[in-house]
């Protein structure tokens, strides 16, 4: 499966969840969609620039809520580590010695709550931090390569949905350095932070119905400058 097909499929699954609930697609729909697809027991999504201050946006079940809460109470766990490193944390066996020594308080408490494996995915685009997507299993075991690929794409989708309501599957294509460069340039042009710059860039593409990559290329080539209407 190509990554474009995968992104389209994941987007469809998230949109189905929203449709079933009769509402617009939002990041909260990612939780319900990701659980059956990557064969985990439950999921949670917290939003906010850092994990400590983030708020719990969605949980699929009571165990997921407990795991998310435990990490904030105990000040340690995969969610906090994922947020700190801006990379995923894949704790496929919490009872394993290595994870046990990494989180001496969280490990036993999470096992007690009913989780045997926890996977945390930071919702980041470079320096932009939107939150963390957490998954847990009641039995130990790693995500397969395919499940990991899906989980990463669900996390990408959640990131974009958290940052910006103007989601278009067409923009979920592969990585373009110009988009990141243009985002950096907009922080100066508009005198805003990196997250705002990202949202404004996408909004401009959406409102004017232009491909995001094309807008970014024009900005980097200095054919286009974005200015705020007074």
């Amino acid at each position: 499966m190509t990554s474009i097909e995968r992104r389209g499929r994941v987007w469809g699954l998230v949109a189905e969840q929203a449709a079933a609930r009769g509402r617009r697609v939002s990041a909260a729909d990612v939780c319900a969609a990701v659980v059956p697809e990557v064969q985990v027991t439950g999921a949670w999504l917290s939003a906010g620039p850092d994990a400590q201050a983030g708020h719990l946006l969605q949980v699929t079940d009571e165990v997921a809520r407990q795991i998310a809460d435990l990490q904030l109470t105990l000040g340690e766990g995969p969610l906090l580590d994922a947020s700190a490193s801006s990379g995923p944390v894949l704790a496929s066996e919490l009872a394993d010695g290595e994870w046990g020594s990494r989180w001496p308080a969280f490990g036993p408490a999470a096992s007690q709550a009913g989780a045997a494996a926890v996977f945390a995915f930071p919702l980041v685009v470079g320096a932009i931090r939107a939150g963390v997507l957490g998954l847990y299993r009641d039995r130990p075991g790693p995500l397969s390569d395919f499940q990991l690929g899906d989980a990463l794409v669900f996390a990408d989708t959640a990131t974009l949905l958290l940052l910006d309501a103007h989601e278009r599957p067409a923009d979920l294509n592969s990585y373009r350095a110009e988009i990141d460069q243009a985002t950096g340039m907009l922080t100066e042009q508009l005198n805003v932070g990196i997250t705002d710059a990202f949202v404004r860039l996408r909004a401009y593409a959406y409102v004017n119905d232009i491909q995001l990559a094309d807008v970014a290329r024009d900005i980097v080539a200095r054919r286009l400058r974005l200015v705020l209407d007074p």
Partner: protein
Amino acid sequence: MDGQLLSDTFVELTDTMVADFDIIDFLHVLTARSVELLDVSAAGLLLADPRGELRVVAASSEAARVLELFQLQSDQGPCLDCFRSGQPVGCVDLSADPRWPQFAHQAQQAGFSAVQALPMRLRDQVIGALNLFRGTVGAFDPEVVHVGQALADVATISLLHDRSMRRTDTLNEQLQTALNSRVVIEQAKGKLAERLGIDVNQAFTLLRDQARNSNQRLSDLARAVVDGTLALPAPGGSPRASRAGRIRQP
């Protein structure tokens, strides 16, 4: 070819079981040693992301990195063909090759005249491609291709072979962290370029030199630039754009 360096490199590429093993450092070693050993101008490396897309994860120079990125963006080039077929793909003269017109043009602009792409493959599994760039026209020495493939094979086996699942997880964690760091660097390049009125390549050179001079990791410095925790020079007056896009105040 430097026999001592070659045997040292093979040892280096099998030494993946150390506690502080880092996949990105490891792949940088592969591209750097390829340049030293194989008499090529530059080397770049593409690796398949678990999402199913190829990503640039290492390059011996910024020019090689940009060229690898260009292949992904234009969806054409020898490295892509090599990855998709799992077979070596070469071109002895980019000025006379009809297969990848956009890539050939871009490569020549960067000063490269010939390219050899080698698969990173173990049996049926292709995990990426190692690409060698040379500034002069002409066939690659068969020994260079042979040794280059051997380096790619050893690196591939080291990454795939005899790993516990826990280790696969660690590699995936490191790969994703590194890919995100690269995004931070691109964001910082854009911010600096706009602030100082320079282009993004000049901004990269500034960042890289500053990181070296202050003995900081490039990705840490880039994050400080983007987060605004590093004091930047005053704006240098950006060139005017040919058109202005208006956006509403929130």
